[in-house]
């Protein structure tokens, strides 16, 4: 009796196992899985959410048109909790266990830099949507492609803007101390020095300890024409509030995008009125002159009741580009997808033309915006400008 029960149990377990194991390739056959690593929680969750929203819109549009290679596309999310070690684990999980066709991500430069090595050893194509630190492309890995413009492109655009708008002479750079901040500081320091703008100081800060007043007081002592912030969202809002507190009045408040161009930044949930007159680089706006931009904005607003910033668009276009490449590759073979991305030449998309250079970098134009009346307005380049830049920024004591 006992042995009968046991063999019955063993049989059940074996059948159970074979069902579980058997079902994996079956699922794979019906959908094409694309892995997404982003920061759904943690200090960068605001950007992770923008990513998620952008990816979701792209996914629905792709599947509404029948998917790719005759199959539906499925996104396999991995939340890196805004931590680089988690992002690295995400690569193994998505590739080794879930067998995704390719990867998109991560959000931050820090986390993206961390996954370049694992991506290369796993030989899986990676499309980077938002990481601006240029060292994510340093490895020259043939598996890595980046859709956004990087820190050097930001710095170049800033110098062009500053030369045409008052030609300031001095600058201080204030940056958060991870890869994003450090890379953008370095790029700006080199570009400014080469352009004859003297960089009086570079001030590093720890983003999670929100008392930057001592840093800002030192900046005030230097009295620069320009202050350049490289900051995420929470630190950006706190920096502007504390700039008001210490009465720091440079002629130009400028920033390397990110926190200073997040949707929340000029609202009451962010820096509110303290955000006014800050200038920031951006990679895309709903008003951008590319077909699909306005439609994306409308769809985003319909779903999430807010207007998207460039982070959402970069996620959207990354997935669109990935699917386009899989379509061209006509295969789920990693090397074939990689070669298809390499040879891709989209004359136009909602994020502008897309073509990767020999190092996997997409050449993307950078624009400059200013917060005016609680809204981001394009102020540069002139052919798409919506408003004139207000320079110098009024002193805090003269603001209402």
């Amino acid at each position, binding site marked *: 009796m006992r042995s009968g029960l046991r063999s019955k149990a063993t049989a059940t377990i074996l059948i159970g196992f074979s069902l579980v194991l058997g079902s994996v390739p079956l699922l794979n056959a019906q959908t094409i899985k694309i892995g997404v690593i982003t920061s759904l929680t943690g200090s960068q969750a605001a950007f992770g959410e923008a990513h998620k929203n952008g990816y979701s819109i792209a996914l629905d549009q792709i599947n509404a048109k029948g998917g790719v290679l005759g199959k539906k596309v499925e996104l396999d999310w991995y939340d890196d909790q805004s931590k680089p070690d988690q992002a690295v684990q995400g690569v193994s999980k998505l590739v080794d266990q879930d067998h995704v066709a390719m990867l998109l991500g991560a959000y931050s430069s820090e986390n993206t830099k961390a996954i370049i090595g694992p991506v290369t050893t796993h030989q899986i194509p990676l499309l980077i949507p938002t990481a601006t630190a240029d060292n994510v492309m340093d490895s020259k890995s043939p598996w890595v492609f980046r859709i956004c413009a990087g820190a050097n492109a930001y710095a170049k655009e800033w110098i062009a803007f500053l030369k045409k708008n008052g030609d300031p002479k001095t600058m201080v750079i204030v940056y958060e101390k991870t890869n994003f901040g450090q890379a953008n500081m370095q790029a700006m320091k080199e570009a400014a020095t080469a352009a004859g703008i003297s960089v009086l100081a570079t001030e590093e800060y720890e983003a999670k300890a929100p*008392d930057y007043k001592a840093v800002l007081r030192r900046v005030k002592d230097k009295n620069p024409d320009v202050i350049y912030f490289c900051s995420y969202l*929470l630190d950006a809002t706190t920096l502007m509030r504390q700039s008001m507190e210490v009465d720091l009045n440079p002629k130009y408040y400028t920033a390397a995008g990110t926190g200073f161009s997040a949707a929340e930044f000029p609202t009451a*949930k962010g820096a509110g009125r303290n955000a006014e007159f800050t200038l920031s680089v951006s990679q895309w706006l709903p008003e951008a002159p590319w077909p699909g931009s306005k439609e994306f904005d409308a769809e985003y607003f319909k779903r999430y009741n807010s207007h998207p910033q460039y982070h959402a668009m970069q996620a959207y276009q990354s997935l669109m580009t990935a699917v386009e490449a899989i379509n061209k590759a006509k295969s789920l073979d990693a090397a074939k997808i990689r070669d298809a991305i390499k040879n891709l030449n989209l004359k136009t998309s909602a994020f502008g033309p897309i073509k990767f250079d020999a190092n996997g970098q997409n050449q993307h134009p950078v624009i400059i915006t200013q917060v005016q009346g609680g809204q981001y307005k394009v102020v540069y380049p002139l052919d798409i400008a919506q408003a004139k830049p207000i320079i110098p920024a009024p002193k805090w004591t003269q603001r209402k």
Partner: protein
Amino acid sequence: MPRFLTDFLQAGMDGLLTGALYALIGMGLALIFGVMRIVNFAHGAFLMVGMYVSWILFDKLQLNPYIGFLASGLFLFAFGWGVYKLLIQPIRDRSDFMQILMTTGIALILVDSIQLKFGADYHQTIIDLTNRPPFGFGPFTLNRAALMSFGIAGVFIVGLQQFVVRSRTGQALRAIAQNREVAPLMGINVTLIQGFSFALGIAMAGLAGGLLLPALYLFPSVGEDYTLKAFVIVVLGGMGSIEGAAIGGLVLGVTESLTSAYLGQQWALAVDFVLFLLVLSLKPSGIFGRQRA
């Protein structure tokens, strides 16, 4: 006034404002150590729970954190007592090693439970007071929210000190700190008083957490640095002396602020620990001399 002097005084005053909250945190840890000889490695985690209590009240009921911090304190008093009864009392006579493992374990469980329930997101508590222009006098400016926290913390620091020195419970508490074996012979209920002082120490961390909420970002592991800082404060003030801890907190706040002003913010925590090592190696009884509460 010359510029270098105003800069120095400004940094010093900013440091005192932060230091008052450090004092509150340090006094809680000193109280627990003094009465129980338990090194509470979960102190920062309890502080974090205090922040979440106040934040939930703010987020769901729009309750101002300057009222909500009282709820943090009360909640943590009850919570602390429960933790004492369930987890600390059974091991209070065991080795130091056991106690370290236990409190470290409590800290891990608290941080991970909060992360499970509320996620790893960062939250910012923006209240009207933090967005107002600062309070200015002469060449100096002080953040209004920090000033408010300083005032409230001051009341609790003096209150706790007076309570320990003057009240009967305070006397019992000090009696246990002086001699654990003799105290029960004098008719003191050691278990009750220890539970009470553990809860009170945790409540201090909770109050400080509530008061820190408007000044910090909130996330599950926010307390980790504060556990370490609390140790530095307690060692500065002489292990277990609550007056020493109060002064140690102020010293630490000012040290951090001056470090930020003259060396850069990224050095603040490093200098904390240099101070810690210096005191431990040169004057282990603490800067302020006395050995015990």
